[in-house]
Every structure is written in structure tokens, then in C-alpha cells.
């Protein structure tokens, strides 16, 4: 279970002004739940996902995963937590352009104790299921948007996470690729993972895939 308790995030801009990004965010997500976080651009969705992943420390409040706070833990523990439990699909995919498909997918596994053989055993079925086998050794900057997104999804899944965070995953995709992404979400559901997906795309709210839908506007969360 993921619990967000009184999360506030304030930043200071270059002019020295304090800007409120998130205000008193509080909600809970059950294990294997699919949660949709809807909101316009600049509403704080990405910041909230980064806080849940332990990439950003909130100004106040805390995030707990299975009862353990992850908001103020040292870097090595939050890194280990991300590596072992979280898969992150970013808005702009955030792939390393001059690395191959395989190297991008296996990036989270470099700091682990897994052998090269174990990594190969793990990556091959993933390549096959996302139809990336033929382009395994290709540099990702040569791939289409849809292919890059599949690589980003494969990278989020390679560490067998139980929590997946997807930040505007369809922002750069056309209708066909949107539908393809939905079929991938179906597959994720069957894997029994917890998913938090943030988007401004209202089409997601029409799906019965999500158990909970939250709206975020100017850093304030509301439950419809």
C-alpha cells in the first residue's frame, strides 16, 4: 500500500519567490490498484510522481510504501527502493539516445548483483512481448516514437516492479499508438502491479481500467 500524508512542495524561483507546487496532498493507494491522476499541464502531476518515486523530497509530509517512509531516507536506500520496487515511464521516455535498445532496457540492472546471463534471460522475453526483438541492438534515437515508448515500458518492467509510475505516457503518441498503449496497460493489469498514471488526456477517464481517479489542479488534489 502507498500512503501520501500531507505532502507539500514549495520551490523558490530565480527571482527568490516561493512557489507552491503541491498543497496538502493526501491519499492512499491499495496494492494492485490502478490509479489515474488527471490534470492540466503545470498542475503538479509530474512532481507528485517524482515524490512517490523518491526522486524529489517534499517540503513537508511523507510518502509511505507498505508502512515505511521513503521521503527522508538516504540516497542509497531510495535508489535501492526504486531499483527493486518501482518502474517509471516518463513523459518524454527519457531514454539514453546513443545506447542500444537492450542497454536502455537493462539500465536499472547494472548496479544489481545479477549476472550477465540472468539479465539476458530477463530481457529476452520482455523484448519478445513488446515486439522489440528485431531491434534489440539498434540505437534508440533511430526508433520511432511508438518503439521508443515500448523501450521505455520495457525498461520500467525489467526489474519486475510491483509499482509502476507513468507520467503522461501518451503525450507524444497518435491514436494508433494510444490504443497500443492501452493494450499494454491491460497486460500490466494481468501482471498484478500497482499503477499510478498521470495524464491530461481525458480519454483515460472514460476507461474502466482505473479503480480510482484523482484530479489535480494548481497543486490541489480532489477526488470526484
Amino acid at each position, binding site marked *: 500500500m502507498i500512503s501520501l500524508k500531507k505532502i507539500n512542495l514549495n520551490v523558490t524561483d530565480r527571482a527568490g519567490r516561493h512557489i507552491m507546487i503541491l498543497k496538502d496532498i493526501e491519499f492512499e493507494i491499495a496494492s494492485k490498484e490502478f490509479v489515474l491522476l488527471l490534470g492540466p499541464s503545470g498542475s503538479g502531476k*509530474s*512532481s507528485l510522481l*517524482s515524490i512517490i*518515486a523518491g*526522486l*524529489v523530497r517534499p517540503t513537508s509530509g511523507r510518502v509511505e510504501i507498505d508502512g515505511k517512509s521513503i521521503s527522508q531516507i538516504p*540516497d*542509497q536506500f531510495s*535508489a*535501492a527502493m*526504486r*531499483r*527493486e520496487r*518501482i518502474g*517509471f515511464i*516518463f513523459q*518524454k521516455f*527519457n*531514454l*539514453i539516445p*546513443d*545506447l542500444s535498445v537492450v*542497454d536502455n532496457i537493462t*539500465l*536499472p*540492472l*547494472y*548496479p*544489481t548483483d545479477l549476472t*550477465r546471463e540472468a539479465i539476458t534471460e530477463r530481457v529476452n522475453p520482455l523484448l519478445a512481448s513488446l515486439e522489440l526483438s528485431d531491434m534489440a541492438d539498434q540505437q534508440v534515437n533511430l526508433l520511432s516514437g511508438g518503439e521508443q515508448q515500448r523501450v521505455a515500458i520495457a*525498461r520500467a518492467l525489467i*526489474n519486475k516492479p510491483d509499482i509502476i509510475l507513468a507520467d503522461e505516457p501518451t503525450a507524444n503518441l497518435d491514436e494508433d499508438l494510444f490504443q497500443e498503449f492501452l493494450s499494454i496497460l491491460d497486460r500490466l493489469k494481468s501482471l498484478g502491479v500497482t499503477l499510478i498514471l498521470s495524464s491530461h488526456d481525458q480519454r483515460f477517464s472514460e476507461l474502466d481500467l482505473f479503480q480510482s481517479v484523482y484530479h489535480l489542479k494548481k497543486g490541489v488534489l480532489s477526488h470526484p
Partner: protein
Amino acid sequence: MINTKLLEYALHSIRRRFWQRGVVVLIFSLLVFLLISVFSIAGSLRGELLNNLSSLPEIFVQKIQGGRQVDIPIDHAFEIASIAGVAETQPRVWGYYILPGTDVILTIIGVDPELPATIKKYEQSIAHLDIKDAASQSSFFIAGEGAAKLLKQYGYEATLNLYSHQGKQIVLSRLGLFISDVRMETNDVILVSENSARELFGTHPYKATDIVVRIPNPNELETVKQKIQFMFPDTRIVSTSDLKAAYDHIFNYRSGVFLALLMTTFMSFFTLVIDKGSGISLDERREIGIMKAVGWSINNILTIKLYESLYIVLLSYVTGLLAAYIFVFEFGAPLIIELFTGASRLKPELTLTPYIDVKLLVLSFLAIVPLYIFASIIPAWRASMIDADEVMR
């Protein structure tokens, strides 16, 4: 313990930025190359000269007239030999000889093969030769190995034709080679009979070029020098320690000039390092952000940066070191050596003796390697301290 997967990633990262890293390797290698080359040449020359000095007698006595060196009467040697503390004196007949029509300068030394002093001085060098045979024929020459090679280039192998100061031809036949650990000696020295040397340089039978004096106890050196000076006020007395001081002056001066030049190079290098330390490219910052987002710790990121910088700096160091060694000791350090020896094209050319100064290697390693590693790791550490979220947007 080395994490092989992180090492693999670091090496892959270098390959991906081949040109960018290649330039750094090139600059570093060049710097190490220059540094090691210059100090190796200086060290080798200094070592060779000191080795040469160690084979020389303790004192040389020269007669000075009108500020110039002139031949010294041989009987001075007997009087000097009577001074307490002097073990042995020997008048020498020697001089420089320019091979006509060439730019070859030879050092011709007259020796009397029957004199015990000669046998002692050259016992190692000419032990393989039949000295008695040499004594029976006065028109012999014994060449150092380097000198023999040089003479061969000008057609002199079994015989050597020299011309006396009066233009008379002196034909000498080769008795053999003499061997010495001092390469400067073997490079240009030709031993001939004392009579041939006298004829060649026009030295009077009762005179010599100089007198060498052996003083076994170094504590008595200064006293003996004073006594000789008192006995013969028109002489100049040069000790090997005076020569050593003179050589040291020359090398300290020339090394100082190079040090100044190298300081300029180092300044450029430091500027590069500081420039590098002030930040890393946007792509690299973004890559660090992605790594953090997918579960790399700051420690993991710094580890690959350490591997990467270690690989680059060690590769540069070894490349520069090997290149310098080959350049100096295989190819004779063309261009650079002229800055030490002067730009004259006089022959025989000096061959540098391989020389490794461990202190120099350690110092240059410590001056370059840690600096680059810090300069690589600090910006990576700074980038990894920024929120991954901020770097990736």
C-alpha cells in the same frame, strides 16, 4: 571490489564519447610525453656525464699562459708525485681532431701501453687486446665502439689516415675496439700511441697536454690542490668535483628553462581541468538524471565516473610514458635533444643511455592522475546531487 557491470558501462560510455574522450587522452598523453621526455633526456645526460666523471682521475693540472691552456712540462709530474697524499701522476697527450672534410670531431688520446697507469686506466676496456702487440707497433689505433661505427661511414675501418699539424699524413692500423660502460667515451674516443699523438698535435717530447693526479683520500684533495698551485702558480687545477658542479649548473639551468616551458603547458592543462570541473555537458547531466530515476545511487554514478576517468588518465599516462621512452631512447629525441646539447650538427652524435627515474615517474603520476580524477568526479557528483526530476525535464 570492482563491479564488472559498472566497469563495462564506464568503458561503453567512453566508446560512446570516443572523440570527446579521445581529445582528452591526446592532450594528456602529449603532456606526459613532454614531461617525461625532457626530464629523461636531462637525467640520461646527467647520468652519463657523472658516469664519465667517475672514471676520471681526481685532478687535472693544466698550464695556463696568457689565459690559454698550453702544454705542460712533463717534469712537473715528478714534482707533483712527491706531494704527500698523491698516489700517482701521469702526463697525458691528447687533443681534438676534426676529420678533414667532415663534421666529425674525435678525441685522440695518446697512451703508452707499457705504462702501468695506462694498463690500469684501460684494463677493462682493452683487456681483450694484445697490449704487447700494441707496444711493438707504434702506429695503431683503438677505437671506441661508437667511434668505430662513425669512422666506417667515412671509409675508415682497418686503417685511419690522420694529418699532423704540419700536414704530414699519419697512417694508423686498427688494433681493435675498446669497451666502456661510458657511452660518451666510446662514442668519440680513439686511443693511439703516445708518439702518434705527439706527432699529430705537435707536442714537444718533454711536454704533455695535461697531468692527471690520483689522490686516494678525498679529504686530502683540497690540500693537494693548494700545494700544486703553490708549487706551480701558472697552472689551473681542475678537480672532478669542479666539473660535476659545472655540469650541475648547466643541467639545472636547462632543466629550469624547460620547467618554465612546462609550467606554461601545465597552466593550459589546469585551465582545461578547471573548465571541466566547472560542469559537464547537458547530455551527461541528463544521463545522470535518468540513471538516478531508474535506481542508480549517487555512489553507483560516482563509481562509473571513477572507472571512466581512471581508464582515460591511466591510458594517457602509459601512452605518454611509452611514447617518451621510445622517442628518447630509441629515436634519440630529435629536436628536443638539440635544446640540451645545442643545435650543432657535430658528430659523433650523442646516444642516450636508457634511464628511468622512478621519483620522476611517481611525481608526474601524482601531479596528473589524481587531479584529473577529481576534476571528473566533482561535476558528476554535483550533477547527481541535483534532483533527477529537474535534470530530465
